């Protein structure tokens, strides 16, 4: 296996890391400043929460895909594992824990700018919010956030160290150990994530609950993580090290995985919608009612075409999956649509956001956190070979590419 890694050279990760970091920090400082100014404070914080949900969600998506890769014995995941490790590793998770501080600050400030349950006056008149206080209170949210992030960072670090160690030690036992930690970690990630995502995002819609929410949330972000990784691999498919493993079988596998997630995410979305629509209970239906008012309904409806039919029609065609260029286009499409979907999920929860017109603060927060995300990603991906050279499954992938 060539260690030249042309793809890395072209990306110029060092420049990308520092460039993105500078841009991210500058935009972040502007965002923080706007959070302090009375008039723009509300809009800025709401935009920031949405940006955190998307980029943080991408980090969680990368992490959950890493865990899935270490739970299954599929060779296809080896080609994208290092991308997920960088995007959902301990450093990325740590960065998003730090970036959660402004959100936590609004919780402790006792206002309902983001979360109605953070305002003691509202809680006083609402028996349901009083009932949820052990979880939905500033202290409950802070403790839960610290615990789940602590556990995820520890686990991500453990798995990453193991893969990097195997690159030098060649010890096949490392892989076996990861097969034990992968499924255990996956179980605990899903359980802890369910509680955390409920606090961070679901509780924005004050009385709404849905048992489908956490699986829906996790699958949606895993879909974004997969599309990003597929985009990178296909974009650099002619360069080493990806050129060495690229084969129609690999692109077919990656494409099929995207097809599976396209259908699975739609299945979860549609099931949740149908059940809530049929039940027509006020406390559950209000979630979709809010998102069907103003211009939001057009975003919701367009998601059916953009997030389901378009990728489905593209991915059922074998030609799309045979050529990296085609697959790269689908991956980029999915990634962009995931951004719009995230916008539709988070922002209509705020009563002042009656229409989906993007605000300047939305763009600012999205770019700030996006730049930070890519800076962390670049810093991590350059620390290890783009392919886990001594992973047993890489040999299988190589075998397929040369078969």
């Amino acid at each position: 296996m060539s260690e030249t890694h042309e793809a890395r050279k072209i990306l110029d990760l060092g420049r990308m890391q520092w460039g993105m970091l500078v841009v991210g920090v500058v935009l972040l400082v502007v965002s923080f400043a706007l959070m302090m100014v009375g008039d723009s404070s509300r809009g800025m914080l709401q935009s920031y929460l949405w940006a955190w949900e998307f980029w943080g969600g991408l980090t969680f998506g990368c992490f959950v895909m890493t865990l899935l890769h270490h739970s299954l014995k599929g060779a296809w995941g080896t080609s994208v594992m290092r991308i997920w490790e960088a995007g959902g590793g301990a450093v990325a998770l740590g960065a998003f824990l730090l970036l959660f501080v402004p959100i936590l600050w609004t919780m402790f400030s006792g206002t309902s700018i983001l979360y109605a349950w953070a305002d003691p006056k509202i809680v006083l008149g609402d028996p349901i919010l009083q009932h949820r206080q052990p979880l939905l209170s500033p202290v409950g949210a802070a403790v839960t956030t610290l615990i789940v992030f602590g556990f995820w960072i520890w686990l991500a670090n453990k798995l990453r160290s193991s893969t990097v160690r195997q690159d030098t030690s060649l010890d096949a036992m490392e892989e076996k150990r990861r097969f034990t930690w992968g499924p255990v970690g996956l179980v605990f990630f899903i359980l802890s994530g369910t509680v955390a995502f409920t606090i961070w995002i679901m509780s924005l819609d004050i009385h709404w609950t849905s048992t489908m929410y956490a699986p829906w949330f996790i699958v949606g972000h895993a879909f974004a993580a997969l599309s990003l990784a597929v985009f990178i691999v296909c974009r650099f498919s002619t360069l080493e090290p990806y050129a060495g493993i690229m084969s129609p079988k690999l692109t077919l596998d990656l494409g099929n995985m995207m097809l599976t997630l396209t259908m699975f995410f739609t299945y979860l979305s549609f099931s949740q919608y149908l059940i809530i629509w049929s039940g027509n209970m006020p406390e559950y239906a209000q979630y979709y009612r809010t998102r069907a008012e103003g211009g939001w309904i057009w975003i919701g409806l367009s998601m059916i075409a953009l997030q389901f039919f378009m990728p489905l029609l593209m991915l059922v065609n074998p030609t799309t999956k045979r050529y990296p260029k085609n697959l790269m286009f689908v991956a980029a499409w999915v990634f962009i649509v995931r951004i719009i979907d995230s916008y539709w999920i988070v922002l209509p929860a705020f009563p002042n956001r009656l229409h989906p017109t993007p605000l300047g603060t939305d763009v600012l927060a999205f770019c700030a956190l996006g730049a930070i995300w890519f800076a962390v990603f670049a810093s991590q991906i350059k620390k290890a070979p783009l392919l886990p050279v001594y992973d047993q499954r890489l040999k299988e992938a190589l075998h397929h590419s040369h078969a």
Partner: protein
Amino acid sequence: MAYQDIDKVPLIEGDQTFSSIDRIIADVPLQQKRHNKKSWLAPTGVAFIFVNILMVTVGWLLYQGIGIWGNNIPTAWAFDIVNFVWWIGIGHAGTLISAILLLMRQQWRNSINRFSEAMTIFAVMCAGMFPLLHTGRPWVAFYWLFPFPNILGIWPQFKSPLMWDVFAVSTYFTVSLVFWYIGLIPDFATLRDRATNVPAKYVYAFLSLGWRGSAKHWHRYEQAYLLLAGLSTPLVLSVHSIVSFDFAVSVIPGWNTSVFPPYFVAGAVYAGFAMVILLMIPVRKMYGLEEIVTMKHFDWMAKITLATGLIVAYGYSLEVFYGWYSGSKMEHSLLVWRMDFLHQPYSWAYWSLILCNVLIPQMFWSAKARQSWPCLIIVCVSVNIGMWLERFVIIPMSLMNTYLPSSNRMYYPTIWDFSMFFGTVGFFIFMMFLFIRFVPAINVFEIKDLLHKLHREKASKTEEAVATTGGKH
């Protein structure tokens, strides 16, 4: 049994050849005397007794009406629908193994797909009996259910998942049956060619539809099989999702739960795989199929059982967590009704299901447990009991605890509820043993194809090794 490194266990053990594969699998239905032993007669005989119990129950039910069951108002759905959902679930492993694993190019499915497809068909037959007989007078029900416009302008309610269920289950049964039969055609031809008994030769010749094994036949066959696999794949998800909609689209606490569709599908695959393991263990022993269905197959099936079991357990945790989080009085009352083992009469069912579906299957984390016959049997029996209890907890127990406390009423099953359920279990086992007696329980030509591939892989590895060492060892 000694613990083996499962990665080193081959998919087919022993020095097999095409003729030895024929001998091991195809001769089971051809040598009918092999079945005249206690090992076949005893379970089939016992199962036949239960078939008779089923017939008596159905006869009495048709004469007397469904009042012989314990159903009441508000618990209008009870054992009948519990059993329906349970049986539909049992069938799901067959479709998953035969269709989804085929599309995923999983070679290990070849040894178990035929057997589990048969299981699907018989399980759906058992399932179909319950809603049909729940109508009390099925011949009258047909008149009202059949979807055609009539002069009174009465249309079936197409917005109801019960209506979707009719289409989903009948499509599922039809596609599964055709899929199963198409897969059997080349094997029926093998039996035709090997049969020495003239009537058997004629029967298998008729069933093989003139199969000659020409390139054209194989080409058509491969196309049809792949097409049916593609058709069956969405059915795995859709059938049990629609079954879950029967409950989830209503507003009854415990039913109006949005995670039901994936949670029901996972539960179905969970129970189905447990049943395949449970039935395969004695059958492979009885007919000397150990070299074709190896420990590797059981290990994989146990892993899928564990994975789906974890999804089911996650579903239980979501119900409890969001039951608490919602702050709804009805949700809270439902949790107490299910879980308070000191005061609630049916809480034993809830805690038994947690024991059977969540705690006991955790044994499968251990590779040693996945290779131990007692462990496999204990876990699979417990999963099947647990999955039945899960449906009991969801269906009648939710109906007993309504929005209007004055309407609440206890449900108690009668002896006819039990006889109907155990009668269908007998019917299922009876049909499975008839299937083993007359049809190759394992796909002969797929095993031969797999054997060919394994030999080729072995040869290419040897060539590589020779090339690397330059022939020096």
